[in-house]
């Protein structure tokens, strides 16, 4: 009995703590409520590819506009307007009504970071050179903060190399807030187990007892830390607040996991899923990562995901050589970005497009309500610099899906020059489309209505 009232206190305290943004799950007193499950999910994936893309003749990420358009440019066509496809973008042709190419957008906060590092801010738009040395919250986490409680996992953070990386060489797209990168998962078996076999063979009762114990201990730890906090100066108190927020977040996750033990785990068909795949088979591996996201979405285990397909700092992993395995290119993958050999650059882009198109096709092929899964999934795919030069301007960007969430596709949109707006405007509109009513994200100046009309 005393434990119950204690928990009530905990929640009251948390609510009064002024930590609304970081602790969204507080809104989720409705864990047990069944109705949320009836609501159709609105999903979002942000996927990143490294080293920019091939754009022969393009100046700073904007195609030269030559006629005919280069067959191997990453951009499907040279002029804004209805999409036509070249060799590089051909895998997306069947998805024509589900995709938009966006040109001329970038995050100002990454401008001076250099091409090797601007991937850090792809999903955050943080001003890394001036103020936010420690990065800031990413788009998926903003959404997860509001809607994450509706699914077993608030978000899913994947990467091909795993971990967080560090300043200037991030290996994750997702950040909870300043100085709080979320380590990405990169081992298919590990990801699968976390998603679909989280109790590792333990009985539900046993799991629940363990979680209950853990929650009680963490409660004690919060009190213990408070003692310390009260003895510190103002600046240091804030430091300690950060700690307390972290411990509360874990506590909430424990409670949340416990709540979810009342619901059966989804049964997942693992046929055709090779979870032992290694980086040496890049196509298998990347498709497996996409498959896992697909399964997580399909089972409504989560609605928000990020996937860092490569990072510019992959020299210490096998991804450094994956173009060798995929295309037979003799040299580090990174070399393609610098040397831009005509014969491999376009092939490489097309290969990457094939993998992404595979995922989009899978979503589209799965019926959901009066449409398909892609209709209710917004997928952003792109890189944080245009081409070989180390510029951090005018990213190659590709938006797909969400047709039943208000998005309209089939065009190349151009925002360079006079029409320049922050890429964060796109983020605001993406968030709005998945029912996150934010008005501002990072350095945004408004919404991006072009993707809706």
């Amino acid at each position, binding site marked *: 009995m005393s434990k119950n009232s204690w928990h009530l206190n905990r929640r009251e305290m948390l609510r009064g703590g002024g930590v609304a943004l970081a602790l969204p799950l507080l809104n989720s007193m409705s864990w047990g409520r069944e109705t949320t499950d009836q609501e159709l999910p609105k999903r979002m994936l942000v996927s990143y590819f490294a080293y920019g893309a091939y754009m022969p003749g393009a100046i700073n990420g904007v195609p030269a506009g030559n006629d005919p358009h280069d067959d191997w440019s990453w951009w499907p066509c040279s002029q804004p307007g209805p999409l036509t496809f070249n060799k590089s973008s051909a895998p997306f042709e069947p998805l024509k009504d589900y995709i938009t190419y966006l040109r001329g957008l970038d995050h100002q906060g990454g401008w*001076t*970071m*250099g091409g090797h590092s601007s991937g850090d801010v792809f999903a955050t738009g943080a001003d890394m050179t*001036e103020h936010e*040395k*420690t990065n800031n919250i990413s788009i998926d986490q903003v959404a997860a903060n509001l809607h994450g409680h509706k699914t077993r996992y608030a978000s899913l953070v994947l990467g091909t190399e795993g*971990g*967080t990386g*560090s*300043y*200037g*060489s991030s290996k994750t797209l997702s950040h909870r*807030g*300043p*100085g*709080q*990168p*979320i*380590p990405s998962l990169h081992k298919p078996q590990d990801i699968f187990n976390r998603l679909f076999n989280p109790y590792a063979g333990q009985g539900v009762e046993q799991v629940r*007892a363990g979680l209950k*114990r853990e929650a*009680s*201990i963490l409660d*004690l*730890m919060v*009190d*213990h*830390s408070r*003692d*310390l*906090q009260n*003895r*510190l*100066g103002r*600046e*240091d108190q*804030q*430091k*300690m607040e*950060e*700690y307390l*927020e*972290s*411990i509360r*977040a*874990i506590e909430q996750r424990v409670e949340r996991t416990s709540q979810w033990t009342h619901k059966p785990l989804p049964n997942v068909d693992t046929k055709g899923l090779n979870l032992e795949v290694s*980086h040496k088979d890049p196509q298998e591996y990347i498709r497996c990562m996409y498959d896992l996201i697909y399964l997580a979405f399909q089972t409504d285990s989560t609605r928000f995901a990020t996937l860092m397909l490569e990072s510019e700092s992959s*020299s*210490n992993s*096998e991804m450094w*050589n994956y173009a060798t395995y995929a295309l037979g290119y*003799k040299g580090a993958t*990174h*070399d393609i970005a*610098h*040397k831009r050999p005509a014969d491999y650059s376009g092939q490489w882009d097309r290969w990457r497009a094939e993998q992404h198109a595979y995922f989009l096709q899978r979503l589209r092929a799965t019926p959901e309500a009066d449409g398909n899964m892609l209709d209710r999934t917004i997928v952003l795919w792109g890189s944080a610099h245009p081409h070989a*030069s*180390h*510029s*951090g301007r005018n990213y190659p960007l590709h938006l797909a899906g969400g047709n039943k969430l208000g998005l309209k596709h089939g065009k190349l949109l151009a925002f360079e020059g006079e029409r320049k707006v922050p890429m964060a405007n796109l983020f605001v509109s993406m968030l709005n489309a998945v029912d996150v009513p934010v008005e501002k994200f990072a350095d945004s100046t408004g919404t991006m209505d072009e993707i809706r009309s």
Partner: protein
Amino acid sequence: MNRLRFFLAAIIVAIASFGNGFTLPAEEIPRTAAGFKSHVAPFLETYCIHCHDSETSKGQITLHALNGDLSAGREPERWDLILRILERGEMPPEGELQPEAAERKGVAEWIAAGLREYVQQSHQPSLVPATRRLTNFEYQNTVRDLLGFELKLIDQLPQDPVKPYHFNNTAEMMRIGPEQLDRYLQCARRAMASAIVDPAMPVVHQTRMEWKPWGLERGMGGDEVGVWGNRRGTPAGGMGLKSFPKTGEFRVRMQASAILPAGVNELPLRLVMGYGLGENLATLLVEPIADIRLSNNPDEPQVFEFRGRIENFPPRPGLIVKETRQPDSMVITLQNLYDDGTLNDGERNLALPRAVVNWLEFEAPITDVWPPLHHTRILFESPLRESDPPAYIQEVLKRFLARAYRRPATNEEVARFVAVYELVLPELGSLEAAMRETLAMVMISPQFLYHTVAKDDVVLQQYELSAKLSYFLWGSMPDDELLRLAEEGKLAEPSVIEAQVRRLLADQRSYQFVDNFTEQWLSLAKMKTVPINRELFPRFLYYVPLGERAGTEVPYRPTIRDYMHQETVGFMAELIRRNASVLNVVDSDFAYINQPLAAHYGVDGVEGIHLRPVPIKPEHHLGGLLTHGSVLVGNGTGSAPHPIYRAVWLREAILGDEVKPPPADVPALTDTAGESAEKALSIKDLLAAHRQKTSCNECHVRLDPWGIPFEHYNAIGKFQPFVPKEGTRVNAFNKLAHANLAGYAAYLQSINTVEIHADSRVPRGPEIDGIEELKSYLLNLRREEIAENMIRRLLTYSIGRELTYRDRFAVEDLIKQTKQNEFKLQDMIVAICQSETFTGIKPQHSKK
């Protein structure tokens, strides 16, 4: 403010005309607003405003609004910046109207006096948090010293942020989030699972293997480990462990000897454990168990013994065969690391030293003493355990907390963990299990994870000081002696601090401080990721010659590049050990090298793989940090030297300027010069083209001259005043024809035919040709800046925050103190640790 500082710093430092050979008496300017009106304002008006007015505002510095009131708003920071620029003579730029030296000095003194007064009068508390989370490096070391055994946890934690030329231990950078805390929790539970054992005697796992000298007729015997080309079934193929426990200390014993050709005195042999190195896998994980140097011949085999923790080695996960998971596996492999600097590519294996291994055995856990010491250190033997369990638990927690918190725990703190213990005991069942969980919670409590600053408590200040000292100089928690001095309240006395600093520096653990500090200070890590052009430098790294992995680097074999890192760290450690002057970073009379490095640099008479100080001669073109391979490789492209990177390095790491990265809107070097920087053999020429553009020239004219004197050192850090002719195909390296060092030298000579020029004129300075002239210029005219930079770096690292204008005078005092002593490094560290900025204790407390 950062923006201003960054930009201004991008402006080249000219010769400090100030403070050197200055004879005119400075004009005394009244230290009031009147002085501003009569002297300072006209000075700014004449020399500065036309570029730094509200409209032009060059470098985003606007001066017209300065009104002489040093205390308003963020004015002190702006004045500090102006003062620094005046002192260093960075402004006005060349070609503009220049003030008289006396004028400049007078204004500088006026500003300095005003700032000093302001800092003294306003005791504004720092706006920066002082509470520092343990860095991963500190965390790992602390866990080791707390538990009494090495446990590798660093890979489990999210990486700490890294910013080039900055330290990652600043409170500002060290944030925490739920994921991080979650990892701490996992690490703590893992650590406790190892630290506290179950009382029952464990099962001991053993494996033993013997080798015989079979197959001698085909070359190497079956019990031999060669440098290359080892066969299966030899010790080089390793010994698979039959079984092993998940936790515990292991023992490996081995009988071995060496077959040494004439002239070779020892053979370095490494034992690694983890995956089998011969396996054809994309990921091969191993960790070294030990390195030994064999010098006994096979007639006198010797037995060697090593110990380690099984937790620190990566097992290869068992495969799933017919839906059953096989057990995890581990292999102990022996590696012959002999390397005389020539290309050990398998052609001359029998002429190289070979190790002979007769047998190898593995045993874990070690039960000589059971329970092990690290267990009884926590759960100590006591009759209390039976007679009064609550009192026993209380005492166990009290002892552990005092070490984990680096100060005695309060009764209340002990009581809280007693509560945790009581909460988990019923479910977990045993005292051991409950204590593991309880102590894991201690290890995620903020008192453990942060070194906190106790504001005014005189007793706690002493403990804080002991932690500050140990985290500075060991990267770990204080030991018993420091804690005892804190308890006695003696630690703040300058003589005690001095004795302790010298004691800590003399301890082995201080090498980790030097390593961590040097790597960040000099931004060394990037050296490891520069892609080395294999066609130009075929003998720098080891590549797999055959098979599926052909052409990739040989994993787990130390190369010259790895030794270069040790060279730089070892050099700094040696300077500190000798209490040598900081000016040795610019030039020294010794190098810190081993045989492979000596061969690389062209120094004769260095044998063996261990690094040591070696006297050098002018013809070696070595001395100081400027010629270290780690610096030159890291600041090159892998094909060519890169004068810009090297210039930035020199100015950031040695002269203490902050150089702003190139603005995003300028075209890349390759775009203006029409040639790939990666391919270019001399970037100097590209830069010359780059400087033709006005937008590029504005910054580069002040940057390039600092990097060009390095041009005689190639992309792999060798002195090489010639390069291949641009556009010619490089003659293929023939490993048979060029098998020895002389052959390799001949090969290099045959391709390198064009002489490189390394002359440039530094801004406001003389013509400088090559590294020797650069060094003597730095030593003659920039010595104080070099010392100041070192003081600032050490101070920043030691207190865990960036310095501000308020620290200017503390730094000045430290310069004065150490100058009379030729800027000796160890004395410098002592002076820093005695300063109020470091201790946070007012001198009156410390009877200074």
